[in-house]
């Protein structure tokens, strides 16, 4: 249902925060976290997840497998 940010890789640059269409990203202790309740994987907004596309470190914004994939409302 959501992306998550691998904290050990996050540079804290804040680029994802401004791009998130759901305002699901915020700073916590110098790095950034995604609120899984708000994240829609950008489905319905953009072709690709914005946090993934703008993040300067590869494999830092990744699908959180502990949640089921997001299902857009019909």
């Amino acid at each position, binding site marked *: 249902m959501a992306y998550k940010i691998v904290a050990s890789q996050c540079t*804290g*640059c804040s*680029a994802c*925060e401004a*791009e998130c269409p759901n305002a699901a990203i915020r700073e916590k202790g110098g790095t950034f976290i995604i609120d899984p309740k708000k994240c829609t994987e950008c489905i319905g907004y*953009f072709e*690709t997840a914005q946090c993934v*596309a*703008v993040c300067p*470190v590869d494999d830092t914004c990744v699908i959180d497998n502990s949640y089921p994939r997001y299902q857009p409302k019909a």
Partner: protein
Amino acid sequence: MVEMIAQTSSPNIDAVIQQVAGHKGCGTTANSGKASCGSAAGQGDLPAAIWEKVKNHPCYSEEAHHHFARMHVAVAPACNIQCNYCNRKYDCANESRPGVVSEKLTPAQAAKKVVAVASVIPQMTVLGIAGPGDPLANPAKTFETFGLVAQGAPDIKLCLSTNGLMLPEYVDRIAQYNIGHVTITINMVDPEIGARIYPWIFYNHKRYTGVEAARILTDHQLRGLEMLTARGILCKVNSVMIPGINDKHLIEVNKAVKSRGAFLHNIMPLISAPEHGTVFGLNGQRGPSAQELKALQDDCQGEMNMMRHCRQCRADAVGLLGEDRSAEFTTDKIMAMDVTYDLDARRVYQEAVEEERQAKSAAKHEELSKLAGEESDISLLVAVATKGSGLINEHFGHAKEFQIYELSTSGAKFAGHRRVDMYCQGGYGEEDTLDTVIHAINDCHAVFVAKIGGCPKADLTAAGIEAVDGYAHEFIEKSALVWFKKYLAKVASGGIKHVNRGDAQIRQGALISAA
């Protein structure tokens, strides 16, 4: 504010571009024989409006950088492009010093910092926002900071440094906020070359890669430059010299930016130490040697004015170029400071600094006129230990960098600087650090210092570099020319034989603040 913009802009874009591109800027005396903006008269051949903009801006005027200071505030952490010479795990390796973590500031903290620094360092005349990401990828924080600084410290010049991707969209806002100087980092005008420097850009909610990404980037950079020129905003172009990738191509870049009205071109050496973890650092891409860098700068000099005094400073640097006082102004210290901003005191102090600058300039011209009539093909480099003010006023062992001057019968021309970090700690030098210094200034015939110990002096002599301590606390250019005249006389009389020197190393790695 709006009125000032109207005065400096012109309805005719071509006329403005020609006006800005046609002149030669500061410090070009040696090659062109023309008066530079450091001439005794002051502005030389610069139009008055442009002279006003550069005379106390350390990054836009080689002369000013000896006397006036700048600061950066790190309010813009996000970036919208990826560069192979940058690793965001640290700071941007070229545009800000690697390995030094910038303290991120909010706009309100940044504005307070500017007022505090300006009160402690009255010759601080310029505030720049240069990252550590891209200011225009953080537009809200960037413009809020500029707005607050304009209120709190109205005499400070505002500056921004960008990769140019978002420039066309923000040019009007830049003009509206009275930002007089913009630096764009342009490493290529050929997308094929760009694809080897930029793995991707993020634009319009999409990540673009390869040649397509570089094409969008170069298009926006050049269009942004034209739009800024049309609005009378002075533009400097920074280029990172990457041997084998864009070194020869930068001559084309130079022509492209000159024709679009760039005021100054700053070609910087690639910093690519493996420990910075950048793509170039890890794949073994080397940076240029001192000779390679200078040769490229010289090749471009005929086209337009080149900046050679850039220190590739970090996004939170404070002080004169080449010194870093950021440790004196951490957020904790600033928030505890009680500051009153004294505009009059700053003006008086700056007038005194301006007098000092003119005195130095006059001394140089006086000595230059004495050289008239001398004829020699000899041109050589000398290194100078200085703490600023245009004086030979630093002890050899305390110098963190040496300034390099090229001497010929047409004068003393600033040719760059070499970082050596601290060679002397607590009164005694160390063998290997002296070697570092010798490698860094190996292409020089002499080194001018305020003072030097017997041992290093002997070692320098053995390496073929004369240590000159007879001009302590005198003006740099004047002293160098007096020494050069004597040198030529000794060569002419057969007392010494002139031999060319070898290449020198550009030192990689971070300059750690000594404060």
